[in-house]
């Protein structure tokens, strides 16, 4: 699925949209508080171009659902403006926004059949009967549920209910569809299958999707861009590659994927590189991403698969003691003591002729300064 979009293009477009004001969905300095004491969403700025698949990812309670509900109109923003297609929608009631929505528990009406569920949004739009039936049939076929029109939601499996919910959110041709953890209740295999189907539908229909999830692999595989939420603030908004390879701050680095941490004090700066002195007395070179000036503490993040074994002539080469080896088939996970950090993980690919490590052995590892990102602490 990776080749579906071109990350660079979208990144640029995203930036342009944010500045030019031609975005399809736009949050402008939005704040939200439920109780007047705590800000659940703090200063949210977000611009989405038409057709984008944007995922909100973040730990529980970080304000993802709240953002979605403000966009759908079920919660009002305490401050700031939300715009849809250039129009301010803060005061437009939900039923006039024309936004499709898939809920976490699907919210299929239990007293209606599948077909009646799908026909509901068309009925409230006063669509004629024959047109309605055609659209319902088309939408059900689209999610391969054509034969289930006469069933009640209770007579469907979780995955089938999920598809019906999806079809119902799409049947009235909304341009924007919101999904709040739609796959949360499914098992892993079905979830992966549905991820693929949702993504395929998005590509085919050209709709704009705001998707909320807990699951980072889901976010990374499906999205054009991911907004990482924490504590009511977007920590980073970027395409999946950037998010993984170029995290802006230590929260994102730790939240997305696996990550080795080293802390130290900055002792010198040379363009985009900093020299950091570690607790054990040694000093390493790192890429200055989001760190302070000389004399300040920083947290450096190194991805396990970016660490190279052997080669003691390389930059940043250091001695490492092997503490634990876990065989995982395609790679071997190796826990080492590096610069005093006993949880330093190195992934050794199980390729022909790879270095065979033994527990207790002392070896040399190294990494490129570009792969060691100095971040906030």
């Amino acid at each position, binding site marked *: 699925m990776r080749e579906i979009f071109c990350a660079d293009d979208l990144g640029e477009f995203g930036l342009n949209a944010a500045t030019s004001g031609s975005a399809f969905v736009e949050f402008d300095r939005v704040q939200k508080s439920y109780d007047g004491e705590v800000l659940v969403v703090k200063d949210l700025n977000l611009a989405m171009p038409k057709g984008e698949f944007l995922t909100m990812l973040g730990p529980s309670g970080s304000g993802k659902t709240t953002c979605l509900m403000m966009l759908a109109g079920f919660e009002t923003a305490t401050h700031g403006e939300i715009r849809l297609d250039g129009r301010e929608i803060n005061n437009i009631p939900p039923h006039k926004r024309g936004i499709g929505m898939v809920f976490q528990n699907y919210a299929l009406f239990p*007293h209606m059949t599948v077909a009646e569920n799908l026909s509901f949004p068309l009925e409230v739009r006063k669509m004629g009967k024959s047109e309605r039936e055609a659209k319902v049939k088309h939408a059900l076929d689209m999610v391969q549920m054509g034969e289930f029109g006469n069933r009640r939601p209770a007579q469907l499996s979780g995955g089938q209910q999920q598809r019906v919910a999806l079809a119902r959110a799409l049947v009235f041709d909304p341009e924007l569809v919101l999904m709040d953890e739609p796959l949360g209740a499914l098992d892993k295999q079905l979830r992966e299958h549905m991820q693929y189907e949702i993504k395929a539908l998005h590509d085919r229909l050209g709709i704009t999707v705001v998707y909320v999830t807990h699951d980072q692999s889901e976010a990374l595989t499906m999205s054009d861009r991911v907004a990482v939420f924490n504590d009511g603030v977007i920590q980073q908004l970027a395409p999946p590659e950037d998010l993984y390879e170029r995290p802006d701050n230590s929260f994102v680095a730790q939240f997305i994927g696996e990550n080795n941490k080293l802390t130290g004090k900055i002792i010198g700066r040379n363009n985009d590189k900093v020299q950091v002195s570690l607790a054990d007395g040694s000093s390493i070179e790192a890429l200055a991403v989001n760190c302070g000036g000389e004399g300040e503490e920083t947290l450096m993040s190194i991805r396990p698969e970016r660490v190279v074994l052997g080669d003691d002539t390389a930059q940043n080469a250091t001695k490492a003691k092997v503490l634990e080896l876990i065989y995982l088939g395609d790679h071997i996970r190796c826990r080492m003591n590096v610069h005093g950090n006993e949880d330093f993980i190195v992934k050794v690919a199980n390729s022909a002729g790879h270095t065979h490590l033994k527990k207790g052995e002392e070896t040399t590892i190294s990494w490129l300064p570009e792969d060691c990102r100095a971040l906030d602490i």
Partner: protein
Amino acid sequence: MSETATNPTDGVIAVDGTPLKRKLARALFRSRVRAFGLVVPLLLMIILAFLVPIIVFLTQAVYNNSFERYMPSVSPMLAAWDAESEPTEEMFAALAADLVITKNNKNIGKVATRVNRELSGTRSLFTKSARKAKKLEAPFKEALIDVDKKWANIATWQAMKISEKSLTPAYLANAVDLNYEADGSYTVKDEDRRIHIKLFLRTLQISIFVTLAGVILGYPVAFLLSTLPVRTSNLLLILVLLPFWTSLLVRTTAWIAVLQGQGVLNDLFVVFGLAADDDRFSLIYNKTGTLISMTHILLPFMILPLYSVMKTIPVSYVRAAKSMGATNWTAFWRVYFPQTIPGIGAGGILVFILAISFYITPALVGGQNGTMISNFIDFHMRSSLNWSLAAAMGMVLLVIVLFFYWLYDRIVGIDNMKLG
């Protein structure tokens, strides 16, 4: 897989060779026995203290043997009699003989009461004749008619023929304003004696009104309770339940204080000029009083099932409806309301059944036109001592309740009912 095998007759075979079905049944049997053991005490209690008394009492509606039992000689003759021809000398002789016996064993009162129910004024005829029966001599026909001319009256004998039948539809017929005649036919009672049907209709009318008023008043309250935060809703729920902590009698008398002519409400009406001081509304000791106080007393039974159903409906349904373009009203009517029907059904049936047999409140505040069938049953149980008629009216009431239950099942479906 190797441990189980299938054979065409027994299906799957368990490891030890017995058919799996039988093994399962054996395993389940023990847990069923245990489960049954746990409910036995309650089951016995229900049978002994509830079902048996009800059945015994209801049999009185169709069975009363006080004539046949104490008048053994004349009874078979009455049964054979065609209810039209002159009673024969033999019948008079048997009657005289029976009267002597009943006089001696002091059962004449029961017999006289029984016949008196069919034809009023015959009580004294029986007691008087029994007193003189010992001295009577053949021919008994003339002798008895000598004692009282009423013995010559064929209506007396017809009343006896009706009383002679122990298993009789007479009481049930009476309960629905019909006369059961000696020849086995039914006739409608005179206009001014048809009171029961009117009473049943009024009881139904009051019950239906109270149920509907309960839905209309209770639905918004239950909705509010289900949407408020738990803390507030618990507090309000206590207010809803508060009436349960005061006795029914207190609540009813409180309504008397509020609604009576010199009561709080009428005083307010006068103050605000809605009623003249000498022409106050009569809000109590009539149907209005019964309706107001019964609606109030039964309202919690409506609110509680409604609330418990509404609490289980996630807000996401209504939100989903709105996101699809439904206005507030459409979302409520097409999505929310249908899901509360089980609650309305449960509360409605509960309130209706309680209302249809309500007793204390109509007795205290009902006055002339606000009393209900249960007050009449009480009258026959305690004042007129016509238990058989009371039982017959109870039976009709039971049939009405069962009919509504059946109707509800047909329209809404009983398995749709949610009590909590």
